C-alpha cells in the first residue's frame, strides 16, 4: 500500500514548509495493494535530521498537537484531513530536515519532507542559514536591477508618509518585510528573514561573511565569498554604515525589549516605539541606515525592521492584541492620515496613486504565498494584525518568530 501526503494541502515543493501555526494537510491512499479491508489504519510520526526541526499532529482544528497521530484512511483514495505544526522551540535549519512518515504497522507507506521555517535571531544563525540568506538577498538585489529596486522605491519620498509617523507604521512595515521575505523565498524557499536584536550584542551580524565590517569611514567590506560584495543601490555599489557604538556590544540608545513591551498595553502607547527603540536603532549608525531617504540601501535595514515587527508580535501575544475589532489592538482614528486607519488599504500594494497617496506605486501587488492566502494581494491595515491566525485561521500570513509562542 502507498499513501500520498499533501502538506498545506499541496504537493508543490514550495509548499512543504510549516510554522508554529497549524498547517492544513491531507493524506490519501494512492495504491491500495495489500490492504486488508475498506479502511487502513495509518500512523503519522516524524523524524528529524541533526539540528533539524520537529513537528506535531492533530486531526481537527482544535486541541493539542501530539508527536504521533493515527488516522483511518479509506482505501478508495478519499482524502482525510489532518493538521501539522512546528514544535515550538525546535525550528529547522535546512530545507526538508523533518520527515513526516506514514506507517501501517512497521511498514512505511508514505513520507514527506518538510521544513519548520521560522524567523530567527540573525546573531545565532547557523553558517548554512546565513549563507543561503545572503545569497538570496544578493540575487534579489541583482546589481540594483532586480525586484529589490521596488523595495527601495517604496521607502522614499512621498511613500514615507504612508509608512511612518502614525498608527500604520507597524502594519505597513509588517507588510513590507513580508513582501520582501516572500520574494526571497521565491529565490530560495528555505530562507526566512532573520532579525537584528538591537538591544543585545550581535557581533556575528557585523562580520565579513554576513552584513559586513565597517571601517572608520563607514565603508563596509564583505568577504570574497559573500555575494553581498556585489550589492548595489541607486547606481552605486557597496554599503555605507558607520556604527556609533562598539559592535562587540549593543547600541546604548535603543530601549530594551522588556522596556519596549512595557510601554503600555494599548496600541496607542506601544506604537511610540517608532521613536525609541526604532528610531534610536536607526541612528545608532551613520551612513545609509541613519536617514529615512537612504535606509533601505543597507540590507541591515530589513533585519532591523524584522526585529521591530518581532517586538510588535511579542507585545501582541503578551496582551492578546490580535483582534482589530478590539480598540486596544489598534488606535483607529478617522483623523489619521490615509493609509494609517484600519479600513485603509495599504500603499503601494493597492496600486493607488495621486490625491492623498503618492504619485507612483512601485512593485505591484504583494508577493503571493504558495502556502497561505492571507493577507491577500492588496491587504488592508486590519489584515496585518492577526498575522498568526489567532482570531481566524484564515488570517495566518505564514510567518512566525523563534521566541514568540502562540
Amino acid at each position: 500500500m502507498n499513501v500520498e501526503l499533501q502538506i498545506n494541502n499541496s504537493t508543490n515543493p514550495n509548499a512543504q514548509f510549516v510554522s508554529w501555526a497549524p498547517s492544513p494537510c491531507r493524506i490519501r491512499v494512492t495504491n491500495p495493494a495489500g490492504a486488508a479491508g475498506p479502511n487502513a489504519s495509518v500512523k503519522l510520526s516524524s523524524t528529524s535530521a541533526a539540528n533539524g526541526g520537529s513537528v506535531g499532529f492533530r486531526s481537527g482544528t482544535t486541541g493539542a498537537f501530539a508527536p504521533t497521530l493515527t488516522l483511518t484512511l479509506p482505501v478508495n483514495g478519499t482524502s482525510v484531513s489532518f493538521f501539522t505544526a512546528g514544535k515550538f522551540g525546535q525550528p529547522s535549519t535546512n530545507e526538508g530536515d523533518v520527515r513526516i512518515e506514514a506507517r501501517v504497522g512497521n511498514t512505511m507507506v508514505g513520507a514527506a519532507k518538510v521544513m519548520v521555517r521560522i524567523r530567527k535571531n540573525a546573531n545565532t544563525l547557523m553558517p548554512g542559514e546565513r549563507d543561503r540568506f545572503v545569497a538570496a538577498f544578493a540575487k534579489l538585489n541583482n546589481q540594483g536591477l532586480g525586484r529589490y529596486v521596488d523595495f527601495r522605491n517604496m521607502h522614499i519620498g512621498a511613500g514615507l508618509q504612508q509608512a511612518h509617523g502614525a498608527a500604520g507604521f507597524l502594519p505597513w512595515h509588517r507588510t513590507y518585510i513580508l513582501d520582501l521575505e516572500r520574494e526571497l523565498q521565491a529565490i530560495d524557499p528555505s530562507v526566512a528573514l532573520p532579525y537584528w536584536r538591537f538591544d543585545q550584542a550581535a557581533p556575528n551580524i557585523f562580520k565579513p561573511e554576513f552584513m559586513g565590517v565597517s571601517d572608520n569611514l563607514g565603508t563596509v567590506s564583505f568577504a570574497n565569498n559573500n555575494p553581498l560584495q556585489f550589492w548595489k543601490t541607486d547606481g552605486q555599489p557597496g554599503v555605507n554604515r558607520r556604527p556609533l557604538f562598539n559592535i562587540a556590544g549593543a547600541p546604548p540608545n535603543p530601549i530594551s525589549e522588556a522596556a519596549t513591551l512595557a510601554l503600555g498595553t494599548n496600541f496607542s502607547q506601544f506604537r511610540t516605539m517608532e521613536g525609541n527603540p526604532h528610531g534610536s536603532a536607526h541612528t545608532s549608525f551613520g551612513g545609509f541606515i541613519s536617514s529615512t531617504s537612504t535606509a533601505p540601501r543597507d540590507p541591515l535595514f530589513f533585519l532591523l525592521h524584522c526585529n521591530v515587527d518581532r517586538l510588535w508580535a511579542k507585545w501582541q501575544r503578551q496582551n492578546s492584541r490580535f483582534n482589530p475589532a478590539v480598540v486596544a489592538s489598534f488606535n483607529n482614528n478617522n483623523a489619521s492620515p490615509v493609509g494609517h486607519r484600519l479600513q485603509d488599504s495599504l500603499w503601494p500594494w493597492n496600486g493607488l496613486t495621486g490625491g492623498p497617496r503618492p504619485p507612483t506605486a512601485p512593485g505591484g501587488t504583494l508577493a503571493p504565498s504558495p502556502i497561505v492566502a492571507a493577507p491577500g494581494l492588496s491587504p488592508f491595515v486590519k489584515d496585518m494584525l492577526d498575522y498568526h491566525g489567532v482570531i481566524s485561521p484564515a488570517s495566518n500570513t505564514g510567518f512566525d518568530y523563534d521566541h514568540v509562542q502562540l
Partner: protein
Amino acid sequence: MAKKLKTAKRTAKKVSSRAAMSVATNVDKTAKQRVAAITSAPLAVVESDKDMQAMLAVLGNTDEPIAVRLAALQALQAASFSVVAFESGRGDYVATLRKVATDPDPELRQRVLGILMRDKDGFAQKKLLDGLKDPAKALVPPEKALQLLSYDVHTDAYEVARDIVKKPPNDDAKREALRLLAADAKAAPIFEKVLRDKKELRANRQIAAAALHSLDPGKLQQQARKILLDKSDYDDIRATSLVALQQFGDDEALGKDKALLKSVKGFSGGKTQAKYKQTARQFLSKYSP
C-alpha cells in the same frame, strides 16, 4: 472613568516628554544627565515647535558640550523618521545642519555633512567639492568627502575622482574614488585594468569587480573566467570571481565550460584557503554534480 484614565495616561506621557525636554535644555544639568534625557525620548522634539526649536538651538550652539550636541543631532535624526510630525520643522532643521556643517568639531561636521548629502543637499555638495579642489577649504578628509559625494554624483565629482585615482593622497582616498566612479559609465576600462592588476590592493580589485559588474556585467563575466583560469592569481580574487559567475552567470554556459570546471576543481583542493574551497565545492555541486 475609562475616558479619565486615558486622559491621565496621555497627560503622563506629555509630562514625561516635557520633563525630558526640560532636563535636555537645562544648562545647569550635567552633560551626562542631559544626554540621558535626550536619548530617553527622541520623539519629544517633534511634540511641539518650541521643543524642536530648543533642540535645534542646542545643536547649533558651539558653547554647548559636544556630547549634548551630538545627542541632540541623534534625537533629531531619530525624530525625522516620524515624517509627518517632522515635516513642519524640516526647513529649520536643514538650515541648522548647514550652519553646523562648518562647525569646529570634526565629528559633528562629518555627521552633519553625511545627513545633508544623503538628502542630496546642494550646499553640502559644493562645500565637499570645494574641499577636494582646494585642501585649505576641506571640511573633512578627502576620502570622506568622496564617500559623501557618492550619494549624489555629478560630473564635477567624476573629474576630481579620476585625478585622485591617478595620484591618490592615500589608499583610502583611492578606494573611495573608485567607489564613486562605479556610477560613471565611462569608467569601465579603469575597473577592468584595476581588476586584472595583481599589484593593485586586493580590496580595490574587489571593488573593481563589483563596479565592472554594475557597468558592464558581460565584461565582468569574461574577466572572472580569466581570473579563475589563472592559477597564479590570489585566492580571494578568484573567490570573488567564482561568486560573480555563480550568482550572475549563464548557468547553461557555465555547466558546459570544461576548462573552467577543471580549474575550479583545482581551486577546490590543494593549498586554497578552506573557506574558498567550500565556495568552489558549492560551485561544482551546482554545475558539475
